[in-house]
């Protein structure tokens, strides 16, 4: 992501209805605003083996669709072109990378949540390492701010990037995005929803 060179032309935003979604979308929009890049918000519903992959998971689909719609709402504020992509797969990470390849994305942006329990730690899970190892494009991880980190007010759309990011690593605090919650309150049926 050198100076004067667009960060990407098309980025896949990995969303899961978790606390880092708005961070991921905002970051994607801020980067895309500069270069006029296109964003594709991807939500993968992980289908366990008790269901067929193509089963109608109405409740999950509605919740995931709402997450994608709200991501589009944020992108509208930034005047960034975005589309939503809702998938069902057995494994989130593989589906994410495969979809990113298929849509021709040259960047994948994921969120890394911070868990306050047990003294607090970043929940890196399995998705991020898989994407690091298998994505043929650049990977950007936006970490959730730690409770002690200073919060930066963001005023769309004239915001400057307030979220230092690392390529292939986590870094930096992020802004307060009150009122833009993308959290999926109706996560259903105990289905797995690993942090992307």
């Amino acid at each position, binding site marked *: 992501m050198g100076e004067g060179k667009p960060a990407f032309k098309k980025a896949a935003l990995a969303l899961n209805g978790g606390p880092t979604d708005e961070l991921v979308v905002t970051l994607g929009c801020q980067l895309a605003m500069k270069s006029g890049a296109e964003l594709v918000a991807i939500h993968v519903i992980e289908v366990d083996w008790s269901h067929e992959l193509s089963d109608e998971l109405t409740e999950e689909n509605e919740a*995931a669709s709402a997450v*994608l719609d*709200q991501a589009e709402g944020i992108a509208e504020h930034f005047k960034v072109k975005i589309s939503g992509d809702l*998938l069902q797969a*057995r*494994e989130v990470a593989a*589906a994410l990378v495969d979809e990113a390849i298929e849509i021709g994305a040259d960047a994948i942006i994921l969120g890394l949540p911070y868990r306050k329990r047990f003294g607090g730690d970043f929940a890196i899970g399995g998705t991020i390492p898989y994407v690091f190892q298998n994505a043929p494009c650049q990977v950007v991880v936006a970490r959730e701010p730690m409770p002690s980190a200073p919060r930066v007010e963001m005023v769309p759309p004239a915001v400057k990037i307030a979220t230092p990011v690392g390529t292939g690593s986590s870094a930096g605090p992020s802004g307060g995005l009150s009122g833009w919650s993308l959290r999926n309150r109706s996560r259903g049926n105990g289905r797995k929803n690993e942090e992307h």
Partner: protein
Amino acid sequence: MKPWLHGRRPGDRRVRVERPHAQFFRYAGPGTLVAREAASAPRTRTGRFLRDFRHVLLGRALSIHEEIEERLTKKKALAIFSSDAISSSAYATEEILRVLVLGGTAALFLSLPVAIAIAILLAVVSTSYRQIGYVYPNGGGAYAVARANFPTIFALIAAGSLLVDYIMTVAVSTTSAVEQVISAVPTWNDWRVEIGVVAVLLIMVGNLRGLRESGNIFALPTYLFVGSALLMIGIGLMKVLGGEGVPPPNPVPGQPDPLEPLGILLLLRAFAGGSVALTGVEAIANGVPAFKPPEPRNAATTLTAMAILLAVLFIGITFVADSFGIVPIDFPATRTVISQVAAVSFGENTVAFYLFQAFTALILFLAANTSYAAFPRLGAILAHDGYMPRVFSFRGDRLAFTSGIIVLSAVAITLIVLFQGDTHALIPLYSVGVFISFTISQAGMVKHWIREQGSKWRLKLGINGLGMILTGTVAIVVFLAKAPTSLLVAVIIPLLVLMMLFIHRQYEASARSLKVRDDIVIPPPRREERVIVPVPGITRAVVQAVNVGRSIAPDIRAVLISDEPEAAAKIRDRWEKQIPDVPLVIVESPYRALVGPLLAYLDVLTQQWPDDREEPITFVVIPEYVARSWWERILYNQSANRLRAALIGRPHTVVVNVPYRPEDVHDVDGAEVIPQTQPRPS
């Protein structure tokens, strides 16, 4: 069916889930959807054509999120808000001279004292408006000030005056701009009305496209005009000091002495004419929220700068015109006073002269444009308060108040045509409205200070009180001196006030009748329902309407109005065989009327209803054929339209249209076939 997608590894399969709503709506929260542009897209070919045409003319539709609110710096605000006031210096001197010239050449020397008197008035008014900016930082238009301090009627008088003011700003600024053009190119004199009309139409289209006043392009003409006008005055002064001016003439015997009664009247009329220079002074106080913080202070500074600039330009132009004995020329073509001053200073037909004329025309067109922000906004506020039709508060595709813009343009164009593009003829209408709104807002401030008091309130009260007395006096002087044309305003403003009161009363009445108490739980309907289906015979459309009627209530009957008893009898036979569970009532109509007998039948049903039971709701279910094109609309549904028009507003009656489309065939397909009776062998 979900499309299957394969990943890089054999087991990595995924399916894409279709999101059918995504094309038209975006989920925004529990139970809330946001419509996308596609949801508003027209579905017919004609609609799409009109949409495309509108997009070419006005630009693509803007979302409310695309509204830009830009705060203005003092320099930019001075240019944008002052164009109306500063541009009036282009014709104010001329208005003085047009009156004084009637008193002979000796009276012309009074133009400078009159201009100075108007400049003093300007100082008082602008000081008063500075205070309004501080007290009403949300935009202290005369309407807002009057609404806060006086009974509604005064606020409406202020609103009416402002509406007239804004309309006149468009008409006067445009005609004056055209006169500047004609002064440079006299051969265009015959086209003055047409040029004015086209100019207004162009400004209208620009504003319907959502023209933003905040762009630098709007600041440029003001500074170009101010710069070139100051240069022109400077050169003119140097020429006067160099002895090039015309010496003041000696009084000619027989001409009125300016200090005699006739002369005083002349002087007052000259003052009234020149006071048009003050129009537009209120714009800055009205636009305080558009300034960068601290808004009131920046607005006050800008207002002072504007008043000083206007006074310098006005007095300077008057002085140079006076020094060179310049008077307005109307024949063979219009030569405005300012164009003659420019010719004296820059030289006739020089590049500088033409440039100055262009800058003058530009600032005048810009002044006309300022009303396109103010008039629709005031219209929207009045509509919001229930004093104007609600359509004035609706914003079009480009976030502009479309109705206000169109009405403003239409009235301004009418005035330009009626007055043949003559600025001088329009000005009497202009000044009266402006000074009425000045007076009301100053009076409102006087009441404000008496009520609120606060620090140095007596001084502030004194300033606004002086402003009120002066502007009120000038309003009376202008009204009397500009009679009989000014009398029109005395008719127009009360008419506008009456119209606004009438609209408000209507809205209040409808709101009262529609109000639902907020402390009750709405019970389900208790009244009985019956269905009437007017039918012309048995068709697929009728069958569909009857089926819809069956789903509404079991008490259903079809009514056939016919002037051919034999044909009606045949229809009854067929009806009883094919739709036996719905009774058919045949109403013979020997006078061939359709609507009247049906209404009479409904009245009879009502009269027959038992008195001890609440009257039922009557659903009149009208079958309609869906017209695919404009010519089909002529061919079909004329009777249905007449019926609907007659039934709308009938008590306890609901009209249900059941459109039939050729693809709606399922209602009759698959129906049981009536066994045919074999004819007996003879």
